[in-house]
């Protein structure tokens, strides 16, 4: 095995890891933004407080994911982001609006606060939709025509529902009282949308890419792969059954297993991610370019690999530390 073969494989793995961590981490805080208009004023403050210490670092995983595509697979970066010019623009506008509204809403004059709340929710919605559209466009290899675009828009709506589910489950875990009760309801209403998104992507992706269909629907792979869809289905069932039970317990003042919905949703994301990764790998753009064609020269990959091996464990360590510091139910967010 030579370095020119396995270095791109490692970097594809690192890039996938960064994207996965991004979807889980920024997914929950984008989701909280999506749900913001549904809460009262005190609830809004508590919701923002629950993501306040984290969102900057969460968004950095997107910079890492996009950055790894840029630096490790420069040939693909130009094609992917050139083809996604408009969704990328909309996503960035959404992320900018959301990120600044987060800070402005507590610092601006009081009459401006509802505006910044609205911008916070709108930015979260725009970014979520755009990311889903990007995924949908990517999975059809940027195919033109009404049908591929319709698919992309549906994935956009589905990913938005999935983020709302993540956000609601985060709130179930991090809050208590009336807001927690509301979050249990939001979570239950997001489950069908998220489920439809997973189903839609699972059906359309192999239809649009015969090569991917071949990888799934052949023996004996099919049997080895069955745990993926079955596991996802099981998690959806658990989620669907657990939420009403948790709501009853919550009404009785019992907060045990408040982490279960979030853990279940993260499990769904993990399984969906594995399915996508298995489908696409070793292509970096389905049907057009594989990771070896797109990769940087091994010399550049080597130097980045050393950096990543040294630094990533530290990053994971202090990220975990930051989450530990703000462990438990969210209080009021105060500077100092």
């Amino acid at each position, binding site marked *: 095995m030579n370095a020119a073969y396995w270095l791109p494989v490692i970097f594809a793995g690192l890039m996938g890891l960064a994207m996965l961590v991004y979807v889980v981490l920024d997914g929950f805080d984008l989701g909280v933004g999506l749900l913001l208009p549904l809460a009262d004023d005190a609830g809004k403050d508590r919701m923002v407080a629950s993501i306040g210490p984290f969102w900057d670092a969460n968004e950095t995983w997107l910079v890492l994911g996009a950055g790894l595509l840029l630096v490790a697979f*420069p040939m693909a970066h130009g094609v992917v982001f050139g083809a996604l010019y408009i969704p990328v623009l909309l996503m960035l506008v959404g992320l900018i609006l959301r990120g600044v509204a987060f800070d402005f809403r507590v610092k601006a004059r009081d009459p401006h606060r509802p505006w910044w709340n609205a911008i916070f929710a709108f930015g979260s919605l725009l970014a979520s939709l755009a990311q889903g559209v990007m995924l949908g466009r990517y999975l059809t290899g940027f195919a033109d025509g009404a049908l591929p675009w319709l698919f992309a828009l549906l994935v956009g709506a589905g990913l938005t529902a999935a983020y709302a589910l993540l956000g609601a489950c985060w709130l179930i875990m991090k809050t208590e009282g009336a807001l927690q009760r509301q979050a249990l309801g939001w979570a239950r209403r997001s489950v069908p949308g998220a489920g439809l998104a997973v189903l839609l992507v699972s059906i359309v992706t192999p239809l649009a890419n015969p090569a991917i269909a071949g990888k799934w629907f052949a023996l004996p792979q099919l049997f080895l792969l069955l745990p993926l869809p079955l596991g996802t289905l099981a998690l959806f069932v658990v989620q669907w059954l657990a939420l009403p039970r948790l709501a009853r317990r919550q009404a009785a003042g019992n907060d045990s297993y408040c982490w279960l919905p979030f853990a279940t949703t993260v499990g769904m994301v993990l399984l969906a991610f594995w399915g996508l990764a298995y489908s696409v790998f070793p292509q970096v753009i389905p049907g057009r370019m594989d990771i070896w064609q797109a990769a940087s020269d091994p010399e550049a990959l080597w130097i980045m690999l050393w950096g990543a091996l040294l630094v990533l464990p530290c990053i994971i360590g202090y990220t975990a530390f930051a989450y530990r*510091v703000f462990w438990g139910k969210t209080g009021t967010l105060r*500077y100092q």
Partner: protein
Amino acid sequence: MELDALALARAQFAANISFHILFPSINIALAWVLLFFKLRYLRTGRQAWMDAYGFWVKIFALSFALGVVSGVTMSFQFGTNWPGYMQTVGNIAGPLLAYEILTAFFLEAGFLGIMLFGRSRVSERVHTLATLLVAFGNSLSAFWIIALNSWMQTPAGFVMKDGRAHVTSWLEVIFNPSMPYRLTHMLLASGLTVAFLVAGLSAYRLLKADRSAGNAVALKTGVWLAALLIPLQILAGDAHGLNTMTHQPAKLAAIEGVWHTERGAPLLLFALPNADTQSNDYALGIPRLASLIIKHDPDGEIRGLNEFAQHPPVAKVFWSFRVMVGVGVLMLLASWLTAWQLRRRDAAGLDRRLLYLLVGMTFAGWVATLAGWYVTEIGRQPWLVTGVLTTAQAAGAATGSMVAGSLLTYLALYAGLLLAYISVLFHLAGKAAGQADAAVALKEVQA
């Protein structure tokens, strides 16, 4: 009408990076100033220092958020608009950008939450450490990005093979000829931007009858920092200019408005560089001074633009440079005058006219920093990477109308955000002044 996609893509990149640099230029130095406030508090136990920390950490949080979101935009711009860049010099730009993300972005973002909101949840020592790590991460990020930018200006440590750059020495790539000068110049620029921001907003609070000790220590910190850094910046700028003469003589000729190689060149205070006639209209200058400054010899020879087959647009570089230097001179006068008064009286006794001047110069650092970056970036044209890749070669396939649409979107967004940022800063200062006023009144009632 056919829109010029290249010109629009350049305008868009300029808009994005100009908006972005505003916030790092605050964050880099403000993080160290916050650490200074924190350490002074730990040393002296005076609440005033912690009050200053409490006010400025909010402004840091806001600036940091704007820096992050405008920075995310940058990481997509390369692919959407400049694919030729990574395809040609990806082996160099890639690892430098990757190291910036891995070592710096995560560090600062990871500890920001604890720095902003965690003081009651961790020990005092861990909170101070978090502040230190955020400051360190910010400066480290500047280190990597300036290394890459300087390499594009003065490339070194590589060979070209089959149209792609390959590294021969990472030390030469990172510490390329202009890198130490540019890094020093930028870090000092950040220090000055923050010094005037702190001095300006504190002066505004003082004008709003804020007599709090927290505001007074911040004002003094800002003024003394400015007075200390501006002479250092003038020295660093001079050294950077000499470095430019050696490595990018065409840029220097544009800065000085020297069309034809000449001995004893004058320092032009005013001129309208005319690209058609290859000369300056309405030139007003001090004889021989340019030669004296650059060559340290009144009869020294300065190479003119006529010696270069390709050279940058002259008027933009020429005038950006004069704006930067003009603001620098104003900074010197304002900071030394205020520092002189502060020797004998406390902040409350400062001349009101000086306070108004400081308020007027709150964002003077932004003007000088932007003007300086325009000098060096426009001065690099037509090259993206000097001698390796032109800007036109790197451009992507996006059509003119697509880029025009995205450019207009960004411009509208940035104009709105800039307005909101500046007005919220003054709103926060006014609110803090009101609270301080109420606290004083309460004490008087109690007495």
